[in-house]
């Protein structure tokens, strides 16, 4: 967040100085105008970015020539901020769902252009596999030796209710193009974005060679519905939520019992496991159905903004 604030501030400073160096005659007016236009357009395409970098090179040359112009010297220190920057917060589910949730929520609600990537392993992987609020019901994790009782928290849904955050749930192994598209859209979106990425992990207890197959099953069971929630679609009168995966074709248990985190409870406490798995099966179906219902809402017909609270957006 601090990085974003700095980048935005430097960009403003650079634009301000750009005007001054045109006034002092140090920099060519047409070049400055092009730079300003490109900066404001803020095109996320690579080609546009490289073109702007080319212009900044010229700008630096022109500024560099004027030996003792204070404004030129100033501008040289911030000129690179006229090129688009991409600010990312990256972390695991322990961070995003638990310990960092308060801060994460605040950043997302701020409307600032910060992209968030949550690498969701459904446990605290780095510290050895402890339960987080992302851990699904019925899974065994450290600190949940008896199996997790409560269902997984739906972080994406919580973020969606702001209405102004780009939210995507992805699983590369289940739908690679959806994942790539989500990254590109998230970054191009003018406000905050949140990508929740299914990440298989040694702590799940299976051979990771088939990690991406597991991702397919997680999606096929409804446990991990793929979607993209793009607030821009509202302007076109469309439902911002696009559901990118099909209704469940397998039971959650069929996916889960490939992995030791679920299997081990079945071995140590079969009855408890069966009971929890019944609930977990239901959780998966309910999660998908909820998304399906939300994605099916006809949004064009409601008054813009009436359905959701309207937090401040950047523009």
């Amino acid at each position, binding site marked *: 967040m601090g990085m974003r604030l700095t980048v935005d501030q430097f960009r403003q400073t650079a634009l301000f100085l750009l005007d001054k160096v045109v006034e002092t005659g140090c920099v060519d007016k047409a070049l400055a105008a092009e730079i300003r236009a490109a900066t404001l357009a803020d095109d996320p395409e690579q080609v546009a970015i490289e073109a702007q970098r080319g212009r900044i090179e010229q700008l630096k040359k022109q500024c560099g020539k004027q030996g003792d112009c204070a404004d030129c010297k100033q501008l040289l220190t911030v000129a690179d901020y006229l090129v688009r920057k991409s600010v990312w917060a990256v*972390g695991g589910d322990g961070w995003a769902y638990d310990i960092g*949730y308060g801060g994460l929520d605040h950043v997302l609600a701020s409307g600032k252009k910060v992209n968030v990537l949550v690498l969701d392993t459904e446990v605290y992987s780095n*510290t050895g596999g402890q339960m987080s609020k992302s851990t699904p019901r019925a899974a065994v994790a450290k600190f949940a030796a008896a199996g997790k009782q409560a269902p997984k928290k739906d972080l994406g849904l919580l973020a969606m209710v702001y209405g102004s955050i780009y939210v995507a749930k992805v699983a*590369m192994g289940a739908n690679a193009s959806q994942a790539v598209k989500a990254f590109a859209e998230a970054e191009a979106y003018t406000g905050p974005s949140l990508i929740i990425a299914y990440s298989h992990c040694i702590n799940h207890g299976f051979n990771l*060679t088939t990690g991406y197959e597991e991702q397919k099953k997680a999606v096929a069971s409804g446990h991990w519905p793929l979607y993209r929630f793009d607030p821009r679609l509202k302007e076109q009168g469309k439902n911002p939520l696009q559901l990118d995966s099909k209704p469940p074709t397998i039971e959650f248990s069929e996916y889960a019992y490939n992995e030791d985190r679920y299997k081990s409870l079945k071995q140590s406490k079969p009855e408890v496991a069966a009971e929890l798995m019944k609930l977990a099966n239901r959780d998966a179906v309910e999660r998908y159905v909820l998304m399906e219902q939300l994605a099916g809402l006809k949004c064009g017909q409601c008054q813009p903004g009436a359905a959701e609270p309207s937090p401040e957006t950047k523009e």
Partner: protein
Amino acid sequence: MKRKMVTTDGNGAAAHSAHATNEVIAIYPITPSSPMGEIADAKTAKGEPNIWGTVPSVTEMQSEAGAAGAVHGALAAGALTTTFTASQGLLLMIPNMYKIAGELLPTVFHITARSLACHALSIFGDHSDVMTCRETGFGMLCSCSVQEVMDFALISQQATLASRVPFMHFFDGFRTSHEEQKVEELTFDDMRAMIDDELVAQHRARALTPDRPVMGGTAQNPDVYFQGRETCNPFYLATPKIVEETMDKFAGIVGRQYKLFDYVGAPDAEKVIIMMGSGAETAHETVDYLNAKGAKVGLIKVRLYRPFSTKHFMAVLPKTVKKIAVLDRTKEPGALGEPLYLDIRTAVGEAMADGIAPFDKYPVIVGGRYGLGSKEFTPAMVKAVYDNLDAAKPKRGFTVGIVDDVTNTSLNVDDLFQIPSEGMYRAMFYGLGSDGTVGANRNSIKIIGELTDNYAQAYFVYDSRKAGTITVSHLRFGKKQIQRPYLINQADFVACHNPSFLEKYDMLSSARKGGTFLLTSFHGADKVWDTLPQEVQKQMIAKKLKFYVIDAISLAQEIGLGGRINVIIQTAFFKISNIVPLDKAVVAIKDAIRKTYGKRGEKVIEMNNAAVDKAVSRVYEVKVPAKVTSKTKMPPVVPADAPEFVRTVTAELMAMRGDSVPVSKFPVDGRFPVGTTQYEKRNIAVNIPVWQPELCLQCGMCSLVCPHATIRIKDYDPKSLQGAPEAFKSIDAKGKEFKGMKFTVQVAPEDCTGCGACVQTCPGAERGPDKQPTGRKAINLEMQEPIRERERKNYAFFLSIPNTDAVLFKANTVKGSQLIQPLFEYSGACAGCGETAYVKLLTQLFGDRAYIGNATGCSSIYGGNLPTTPYTTRKDGRGPTWCNSLF
């Protein structure tokens, strides 16, 4: 009653006492304290009761702030409550700690003392975290060894109930929390005898309850806040005596006598070291040794650091003392000195002013730092501290254990100074992270601990990467309790679990003269000698080592154990070392196998048992020839054309020589150059993918899913093929945008982890005449070793081909994204990790303009852990800039 001897580590010892004497436990994971929470949770899940017969509740919170909040609430409501934490976690508890102490709520926090994130994060041990909490009003009791951890966990529990002052019970992260020792286990009877139930009842009687309502935690104004703050004084004044009495009570019940300050050494010592934590054990051993040789030195182990009792301290300081060195395992930049040092100066000064000092000339007192971030602290360093006191002007604010060539604080250490190890057997195992070494060695010390009257100690050094890591196990056995919280540097037995280590690490430098070396090698007893690098042969001859080989890797594969060679090596160790008669050892190993693998089913047990039986007859002794015959030398750690920083610093760390890199070589603000994983060719894959162009759909899926950025694709101008190595493969590019171009899929053979994810995901299946898939795909796994050289050249050539022009493709497609250079490569994540491919994708799409703030987690570890880091740059020098961010 005779107590059970058990083999446990510090965390196990603390959890044993803590779970038994509490009712509510609130936890949050942080290394190295997490195992205490895990053990407590597992005990509760199994229904194990505390000494009052109820099962404690164990609850994970959303952070340590939450855990401390829960503790505060539970204590206020009257339950006996505890928590476990360290480092950043302890910092998050501070606000609640003030409240808990302010309300005189009795509790013990068990802390594995750990460094704080400053210029860098470190999961390792020192006292920075606990020292930050000195002002909270918590008592501070420090354990030096695993046995003490179990004992002090109980002592502090009773002391807090008796004094109402809450306690931090701390011990050194990793060195004590993770050191396995054979210790005497306290029984529930001991605990019942120690804990005064009347005090428990009083605690409950003070509980907040609507049945007897009160107001706690009011807001106060300038008229009264100050007075209220002073009301607690009598409790702090009374605490040292209470702890002393509790220690005496413990001695009466259990037999081990502790004091608030324990003095060891000559009664008429002139030079005294004062310190706390595991380092005090090293100093203790050194003091005994030096005094036996005629020196007159002493040591004070500080047990109760807060509340600090000058009276008790003065009572143990010999009146002959002339010079004092105070050692702190923390750093307070800008202060006159570190905390313990300042306290000792104040204590001595006040004692002299009050006339209770046993001397009338103010002694020379200097302070110094040691052991930050688990830096080794050895007898030689203890000696250096005493030697410093002999100098005409002893250094103040010194460091010991590093070379500080910037502000010259460091003391010179005579590395040859060693304490002899008669009657002690020392073994080191260089294992591969995933081969089960640590588990097997844990079992070994249990076996030796149980079958013999030997004491045993085990400590494991991990490197920080998650895949293909090296793990060095340090095992000691002996008839006396082993008081050596430092690594072995002269081993009777050295085992190398992977022949490739011999090319990377100088492991025989830690073998003693006449010791034994066991090598895992594909070569038999007749051939193996010539495969060793010259440096290794030289040392073996010079040190007259006994040499054994075993082809554990082939044997494990033959039995179906894959890479898990642990039991094989373990058996070989027992056979060669003869610590326990072989037949007994075999029975015990099989017992351990049943316990360890029982959950995985009969088949796994059988395979491991077979491994034991076969290993016995597959260890061969090799006669060490008199002459060096090898033609190979240890290769340079990094190529000669690597950047200067990589050659002079990174390479040293990679070769496990980081300890000797001086201060001047390091960046002052913790900022390191990027793109260094490329210099670390880890060669950990057994099999790597090989491309079959005609089956390839050119979709880019393999590259997308690869967690390590070690399989890449390019579309390029056929002219670029000029000068290609003979074995370099290419095919006509598919797709109209790449018309007339060539296409290649290339693997980085030395960086690939062999996880197989790419092959599994590849949709390009070969179909037989019957249209059914044959099982072959457009990429297939093959043994790495025979094709390593060929593919290395191919990969180098591939990298030299210009990247596909960005105007030709759309970046937001699978293939397009993969035609862009990844700026995150060869990370140390687990082979097959599901997180890294997303991070890689991020760097492909936006890396040239990305800021990454990375919350602590796997992604910050594989992303930013030394020695080498995976974020890198494009040709023009642009790339992601990265910083770890706290939660």
